[in-house]
């Protein structure tokens, strides 16, 4: 990723209110040059408001947005020179595919011969060679998506913004396009800010994910860190599946149902704590208990067969019910399990994550 194709983005103290509602509440994010950053949050969280502020369609009440060393918060959208893919593509219906892609080049007074060449190259990049003369109404959803992408990159912007670009596509195509957009990003190297409410999409595509809720930045980290070490209950629940068990402190030790837990956390939040468990990180134990694991016992209350895994609801010793994902390989421990069977679960100390019980409300 050469830096000449990309600009870093710096978002400082950006605040936007609609009446009494904080759409954005003092948001600070630095996006590195060439980074793929995803803004993730439920609908109404403010992620789109932030993206629109980057594009210039939305004026924050306060704060600074800079592209590279240039402050852009006062610049109108047409002077920001950023590529953008809109949620419903916003392809001009009165122009052909080629005219849509050529639109930004014509506005930039690019010579005719160059326009032709660049349009063809951009369409080639999104694998739509030969579609130049099609009308927009003749395209499928996936093809429109590609044209929108071609139009956004054809003038070689150093920043690319995407507003839930895949939400209108069906699941298979969406997963295919995720990989393709990611590849395109690696090839072109522009700084990309991507908005989605789909946590799996965010995990699949991003270098870093900024989780936003109620206009506030909840956490901004690489996908792996976000999933393994969520900083609060909101992030833990919004990304992946999770179950929470109440734990108590006893001096330096942390106890679940009276038994001390082994863990590898260096810092533990203050106040009341919860033990966060990912359903797939629990191991079903048989026979000897390995001594490097925390053991939780219980019995099965419900079994849900979901193809690759069996979702096993288990009532554990303190009475709460947690979900366990068990692989459905033949000959596995739970192949013939029934409701009511006792279950012994092992949790690795590295997967034993404590989060504060309050804060980060959903």
């Amino acid at each position, binding site marked *: 990723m050469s830096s000449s194709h990309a600009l870093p983005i710096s978002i400082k103290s950006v605040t936007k209110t609609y009446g009494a509602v904080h759409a954005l509440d003092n948001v600070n994010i630095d996006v590195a040059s060439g980074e793929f950053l995803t803004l993730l949050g439920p609908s109404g969280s403010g992620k789109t408001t932030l993206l629109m502020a980057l*594009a210039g369609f939305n004026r924050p009440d306060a704060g600074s947005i800079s592209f590279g060393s240039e402050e852009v918060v006062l610049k109108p959208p047409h002077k*920001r020179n950023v590529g953008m893919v*809109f949620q419903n593509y916003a392809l*001009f219906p009165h122009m052909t595919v080629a005219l849509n892609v050529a*639109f930004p080049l014509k506005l930039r007074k690019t010579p005719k011969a160059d326009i032709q060449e660049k349009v063809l190259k951009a369409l080639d990049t999104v694998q739509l060679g030969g579609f130049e003369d099609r009308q927009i109404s003749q395209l499928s959803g996936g093809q429109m998506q590609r044209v929108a992408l071609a*139009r956004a990159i054809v003038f070689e912007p150093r920043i690319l913004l995407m507003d839930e670009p895949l939400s209108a596509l069906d699941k298979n195509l969406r997963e295919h396009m995720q990989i393709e957009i990611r590849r395109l990003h690696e090839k072109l190297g522009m700084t990309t800010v991507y908005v989605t409410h789909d946590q799996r999409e965010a995990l699949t595509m991003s270098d870093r994910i900024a989780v936003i809720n109620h206009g506030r930045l909840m956490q901004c980290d690489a996908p792996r860190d976000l999933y393994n070490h969520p900083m609060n209950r909101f992030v833990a629940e919004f990304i992946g599946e999770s179950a929470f068990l109440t734990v108590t402190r006893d001096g330096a030790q942390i106890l679940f149902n009276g038994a001390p837990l082994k863990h590898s956390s260096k810092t533990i939040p203050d106040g009341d704590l919860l033990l966060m468990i990912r359903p797939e990180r629990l191991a079903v134990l048989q026979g000897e208990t390995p001594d490097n694991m925390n053991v939780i016992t219980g019995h099965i209350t419900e079994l849900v067969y979901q193809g690759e895994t069996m979702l096993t609801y288990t009532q554990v010793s303190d009475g709460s019910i947690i979900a366990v994902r068990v692989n459905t390989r033949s000959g596995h421990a739970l192949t013939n399990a029934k409701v009511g069977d006792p279950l012994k679960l092992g949790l690795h100390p590295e997967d034993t994550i404590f989060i504060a019980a309050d804060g980060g409300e959903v």
Partner: protein
Amino acid sequence: MTGELTSHLNQNALKRQAQRERLSLLGLTSPAIIIIMIAMVLPVGWLFYLSFLSDEGVISLTNYQRMLDSKAYTRIFLTTFKVAFLTTGLCALIGYPLAYFLSQLPERIANICLLTVLLPFWTSLLVRTYAWLVLLQRKGLVNEWGIGLGLWDEPLPLVHNLNGTLIGMVHIMLPFLILPLYGSMKSIDTNYLKAAANLGATPTQAFWRVFMPLSFPGLFAGALIVFILSLGFFVTPAILGGGKVIMVAMQITRNIELFFNWGASSALGVVLLLITLGILYISSRFVSLDNILGGHR
């Protein structure tokens, strides 16, 4: 594509049920069909029949022949087209900026403004036309003020001619252009303009390259309605034209009132109808008539 049935279970009963359903639907629509037959198809058919009757009551093409032979008729048709064309052009020129302005206003204010556009609809056409007569005549308000303010010295010939006809007709036709145009402008997704801005278009460029082309179907629809209505217009040219602007509709009345010639009038009516249908047919190749006639979008 009717494939070979692989099961015959209940086949006949199901078929009978489908037939019964079709019959009952036909029964339900029949009152409407009968009304349309009596109110629309029969009179038009009668009109066609009359147009082929000569003065002596024999079937012939005399009435049509006369239209081709007489210079007066050619002039009347030319005048009709000229007035309709100019009215449409002026309506578009005045209506487009107005509709654009309305479409950019906040919903509530736009609705109030639309109400004022519609207000003339609720006053009598005749009253409005006579009001123009009062305003535009030699000693009318407009000329008195114009001379009083020293804008012009002699009373301008504003009425009893083409000027007066056009002023009156544009005033009456304007809502027919503005309403469909406003509707089509409102339905333009603002994301298109955002996309244009994002791609580097100034607001002016976005208007000319994106908004304007996308509003054309609405403009065309409005213009078509105005043009077709103008072709058959009677009251305004009759009163404000002062006998100098003779349009087809006026010739039809004249034929009946002066000469009691139903055949000649019917033939004019038929020709006007055919011209209108012809225009609609040609237009339908450029824009969907569903849009114009208020069908689905």
